[in-house]
């Protein structure tokens, strides 16, 4: 282990308050967790007796399962909360929901909500560490960490890499966290999409380059990340048709020729094949999309382990 930083008791609302060294500590720990995930017996007793509550006020498949699997592989008990079938349907507030769960002895909360800022609200009422599993358009820091870990594994570092992120930047929480993290780790990031799907002052907020032409954006890129085009946005008059969108911003083999030869293709999922990314690219040798999913479990194991009091190093294995 290179780093021995103690992350015990920390929140993860977003990556802004995490240092480079802390992020690298998470990566180093995730590497060990990944090895555990490759064993026949994928479980270690480290978090035995701890209880992790996953509060998913918004639908999710991969993130929720990934977190729950991560907690279980570390032997934590998992309480899974979804809005459907809960007292929230009867009008209970987040405040009362958290008070109720807290009374039952939760040690950590994983929170997904459609409204930005709810993880902070959960922490305010619980006083327990909170991991943000996606809050509205605001942040999705564990997704960003697994994205960055996937690049870090392949390239050893993010420093100096040109990373192009393409698509609906406006509505993406994944982008916001990735921009903070990738810039922090020394990457040069360019975002690209239609102007109606670009948030204001993005260059100023994140110190990134903003392009509206796909070729310019992915020229000489080391990494190209496509984002899910949220089909429901079509009704908002933000772009005229999926066909026009794909013709201008869809990732095809032809487009990838502008990137570096060994470019990594990524996507946080779920994908709209044939819209933002063509199957020929999603399934190509450049694609590490499936590895991203696998790395998600390892990164979340690392976070739960570090935040619930584990120390990087010999105690892991």
């Amino acid at each position: 282990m290179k780093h021995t930083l103690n992350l015990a008791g920390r929140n993860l609302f977003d990556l802004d308050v995490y240092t480079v060294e802390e992020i690298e500590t998470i990566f180093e720990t995730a590497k060990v967790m990944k090895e555990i995930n490759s064993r026949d017996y994928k479980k270690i007793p480290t978090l035995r007796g701890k209880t992790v509550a996953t509060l998913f006020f918004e639908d999710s498949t991969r993130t929720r399962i990934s977190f729950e699997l991560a907690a279980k592989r570390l032997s934590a008990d998992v309480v899974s909360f979804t809005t459907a079938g809960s007292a929230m349907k009867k009008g209970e507030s987040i405040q009362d929901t958290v008070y109720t769960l807290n009374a039952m002895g939760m040690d950590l909360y994983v929170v997904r909500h459609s409204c930005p800022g709810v993880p902070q609200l959960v922490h305010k009422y619980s006083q327990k560490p909170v991991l943000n599993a996606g809050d509205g358009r605001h942040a999705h820091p564990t997704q960003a960490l697994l994205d960055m870990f996937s690049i870090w594994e392949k390239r050893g570092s993010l420093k100096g890499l040109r990373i192009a992120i393409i698509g609906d930047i406006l509505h993406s929480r994944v982008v916001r966290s990735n921009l903070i993290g990738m810039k922090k780790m020394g990457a040069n990031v360019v975002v690209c999409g239609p102007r109606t799907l670009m948030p204001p002052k993005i260059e100023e907020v994140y110190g990134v380059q903003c392009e509206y032409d796909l070729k310019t954006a992915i020229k000489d890129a080391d990494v190209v990340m496509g984002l899910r085009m949220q089909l429901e946005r079509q009704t908002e008059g933000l772009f005229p048709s999926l066909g026009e969108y794909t013709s201008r911003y869809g990732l095809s083999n032809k487009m990838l020729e502008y990137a570096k030869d060994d470019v990594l293709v990524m996507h946080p999922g779920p994908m709209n094949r044939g819209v933002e990314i063509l199957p020929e690219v999603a399934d190509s040798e450049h694609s590490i999309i499936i590895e991203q999913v696998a790395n998600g479990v390892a990164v979340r194991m690392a976070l739960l382990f570090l935040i619930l009091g584990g120390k990087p190093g010999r105690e892991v294995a």
Partner: protein
Amino acid sequence: MILLKNGMVYLSNDKKIIKADVLIEKKVIKKIAPSIDEKNAEVIDCAGMHIFPGFVDMHCHLREPGYTYKEDIASGAASAAKGGFTSICCMPNTKPAIDNLSTLDYIMRKARDVGKTKIFVIGAMSKGIEGKEIANIATLVKGGVVGLSDDGNCIQVAKLQLNVMRYASIYDIPMICHSEDYSLSGDGQVNYGYMSTKLGLPGIPTLAEESMVSRDIMLADVTGSRVHIAHASTKRTVELIRQAKKDGIKVTAEVTPHHLVLNENACDGFDTNTKMKPPLRSEEDRKSLLEGLLDGTIDVIATDHAPHSDYEKELEFMKAPFGVIGFESAFPVLYTTFVKTDLIKLEELIDRMTSKPANIINKEVGELKEGAAADLNVFNLDESFTFDESEILSKSKNSPFIGMNMWGKIYYTMCDGKFTWKV
């Protein structure tokens, strides 16, 4: 009789502050002079204190009838008195809306019974503030409203707004416009710009305000009615008003303490007490508002006191209602931020919180002079305090200034010769 001795007194006629005594007999200021001796008077030593005319707030929400869990006329008046206000104007977005005589009479009667502050009423522009049909404006004016507004329910259809202004133009009352094009503001929560991008919250563009300000200025020009732009928040709004004034259009404007003091960065951290309409804007906008106030483009400071209960505000940011309270922090916040730092002269600040709003609503209030109603307040400007939630008299505590250290502690407020607040 009450004799306030040795205070630093703001004289409304001269707009200057002198050391003087103030004698009050019954409801009226009988005499202001360097030294008054009156054996029969109750003497209050105001040495080291400032005596100002009672503040006039032309934009607040008292929530009665309909939403008395947030505020009612009595609690709102008490809060206003503690802030040094002796005249306030309540907006018509109550339930039922103030679009009829019985609601208007109810509020005016209740206000008289409470008696802590003079309460003037703003009537609705459209029936039910629904923006569909013109309200019974002549009846409301006859009943005593001092202005017309649909406030947060800003009339979207230009033709209706035109008719309201044209119909009301024969009465010398202001059309108070909350300027917001809903098709542009949509489900916006904070300023469209740096913070909306950083926080991932939908943004309210400045254009949503400016396009409506443009429309209403043009309608005022065409109809000859008086338009008053409520809570201006953007640089271009200030420019539009400045130009309109140059063009001779009858336009006035107000700005709130929170828009003058805070910018959008206050929203970082998702504190719902920073959620308001219009939203806190960029630093450039904030500076323009201050410039506009200083050069007279913006006429008055109004609180837009908008109480909401804690269980409404302590929700997800997107679910919490817009608005913050303002009576009790208004003067100390402005004094601390602008007068103590020499950005605004004390006399100028008092003028913008007294005579100027009184002129717009055509009421002879907010004046400290012989013969005027004894509406005044007494502040110790050399005393600081922390704005503490537990000391707020409003039923609601939704203020972005809680915890702020402020200068200017209020000792007394008097309305019509009676003390309405004492430390």
